[in-house]
């Protein structure tokens, strides 16, 4: 007896470890989590929605669209993600969802190789996987919601620039970096569109701002004095637009030199209303979330299959499918008429 009392903590520890690793009960149908909920609505799907980081306004508005779609479809939506972009945490969340037994996982991937191992594991357990915003490796998911192609972005930027300059005049480009793959691709399509459709427009210079707002501002200030004929600044990075706007405003050239680029509405609202920035181009993030959940639902129900050419997502209508990418469509221009309707 004395021995038992003396060794009590050790016994308890062993019992604890046994409890941790041992099974209290066998898994209750691990692949159909929807059935574990008390409500016996057999058809209700559980869709798990993973953003890169939960607090980011971009993903908050994605999640709003996702929730709207889930409400329309009568699906249960779980939204969870790391507080900061953290690939290891994303894996843990996905692995928890696997044991939780969700029906579909929709992920925006911080690191495609890292998360793909977890997503493949989910697929092996019969959970459907789609990705949105940032893809995983193609063998780790069924469909990717492609929010915009490089061509779509490049062309949209150039078209908007030409519209503001009436297809005539000089402009300059602020880019995030001269070497980053997406930046290079976007600049190539801007140039392709210019050469093909707007031969009277001329690009004077391309400057890199290293994805820093301050640097975008100083580069723009330098551009404005080096090239006095520049009628428009086009930024291929979201940090370029507010930086360039500040430079144009401080140079007293508001409205004389136009300012556009890729960007988030919230960062640019003030400059758009002041007339410094004419528009920012991106996609409607809520639509991206909405489409993602509709596709997740259809995939689980078997109505969306590989090889399909189009996909109908509720009130948003029909989307094209290219291979295993569901295309969100053309980018959207946020300007002073509509920018207040968006909060991200």
């Amino acid at each position, binding site marked *: 007896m004395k021995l038992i009392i*003396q060794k009590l903590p050790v016994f308890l520890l062993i019992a604890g470890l046994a409890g941790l690793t041992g099974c209290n009960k066998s898994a209750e149908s691990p692949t159909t989590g929807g059935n574990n909920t008390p409500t016996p609505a057999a058809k209700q799907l559980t869709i798990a929605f993973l953003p890169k980081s939960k607090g980011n306004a971009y993903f908050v508005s994605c999640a709003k669209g996702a929730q709207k779609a889930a409400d329309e479809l009568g699906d249960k939506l779980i939204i*969870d993600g790391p507080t900061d972009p953290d690939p290891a945490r994303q894996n843990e969340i996905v*692995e928890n969802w696997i*044991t*939780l*037994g969700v029906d579909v996982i929709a992920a925006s991937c911080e690191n495609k190789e*890292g998360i*793909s*191992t977890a997503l493949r594991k989910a697929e092996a357990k019969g959970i459907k996987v789609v990705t949105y915003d940032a893809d995983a490796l193609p063998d780790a998911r069924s469909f990717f919601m492609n929010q915009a192609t490089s061509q779509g972005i490049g062309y949209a930027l150039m078209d908007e620039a030409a519209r503001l300059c009436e297809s005539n005049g000089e402009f300059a480009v602020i880019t995030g970096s001269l070497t980053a793959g997406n930046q290079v691709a976007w600049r190539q399509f801007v140039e392709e569109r210019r050469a093909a459709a707007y031969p009277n427009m001329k690009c004077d210079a391309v400057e890199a701002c290293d994805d820093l707002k301050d640097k975008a501002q100083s580069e723009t200030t330098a551009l404005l004095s080096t090239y006095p004929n520049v009628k428009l600044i086009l930024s291929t990075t979201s940090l370029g637009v507010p930086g360039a706007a500040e430079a144009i405003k401080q140079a007293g050239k508001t409205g004389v030199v136009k300012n556009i680029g890729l960007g988030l509405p919230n960062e640019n609202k003030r400059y758009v209303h002041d007339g410094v920035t004419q528009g920012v181009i991106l996609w409607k993030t809520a639509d991206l979330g909405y489409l993602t959940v509709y596709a997740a639902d259809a995939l689980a129900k078997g109505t969306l299959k590989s090889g399909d050419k189009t996909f109908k997502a509720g009130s948003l209508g029909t989307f094209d499918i290219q291979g295993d990418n569901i295309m969100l469509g053309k980018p959207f221009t946020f300007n002073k008429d509509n920018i207040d309707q968006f909060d991200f």
Partner: protein
Amino acid sequence: MGASNKPSIKSVLLRHETILFAVLAVEWIFFDAIGHNFGTYDTSCDILRHSCEIGLLALAMTPIILTGGIDLSVGSLLGLCAILFGKFWRDAGMTIPVAAVCTVGVGALAGGLNASLISWLRLPPLIVTLGTYSLFRGLAEAITHGVDTFTDFPASFLFLGQNRWLGIPAQALVFFAAVIFFWLLVHRTTFGRSFRAIGFSPEGARYAGIPVGRRVAMVYVLAGIVSAIAAIIYTARLGQAKADAGTGYELFAITAVVLGGTSIFGGVGSIHGTLLGVAAIAVLHSGIAHALLPGEMAGMLTGVLLILALAGSILPKTISGLRARKAAFKIPKQTA
């Protein structure tokens, strides 16, 4: 130890480890009741898988804190070792076992750097490891320029982090081996007793003939080696090595150790306490996910848990101390 002192049932029940075990059991029952598929074997395995790296770091942290020290660099060292492991394998063309051995060697060297600065130059551990915390992470970022990641490891290696062997996660075997090693080291050898002695009073330990410098150096080198092993397991679990691996893990490890009843001032603590601390935190994190509660609650509840568990084990002593003092004051009154 053991046979000579005979603890009463009450003292065993009030022991920190017992209280923490009760907390863990309550957690388990609670999440099993409100969570979906929580008490399953798969979930248990995932909890174990997710806690191996932090568990390893916490094991190595326990003797360090016992000696009254601290090692803030373990998370950064995990990151450095992870990318060096990737470099050895991909760029230097080593096989996985050779790369793993070299990585552990680097871990030992890095731990040796901490050890020399702390035990021979007599610099405070907090300052030394705060420096190496930035140094190791900075090196990892410099080597990869912050963007290079290592992936496409062979499946036989990923097995270590992602598959089960004899029904338990493969990395758990490494973890259990480490548990046994550290438990024997701390509780069944003279090393363990010397760690406590150093924690209580380094000068006293020195006068008692304990080679304080060497003992202290040993625990930091061990922490370096364990960080490297954790890095390899981390890489196998995620299938990728990146410079940000293990960010913030040092604080999780320290939290687990302190939650497990090891005094941050040194001298008092146990490996089984640390294990319970790791388990309490891991179960909390997993339970919150399975109960579909927001993940932020995990951090909050870890804090509450830490305060409750420490209060739970200290309060009875404080109360009995107060009673004893009260009684001591009463005696003169009665005699007067």
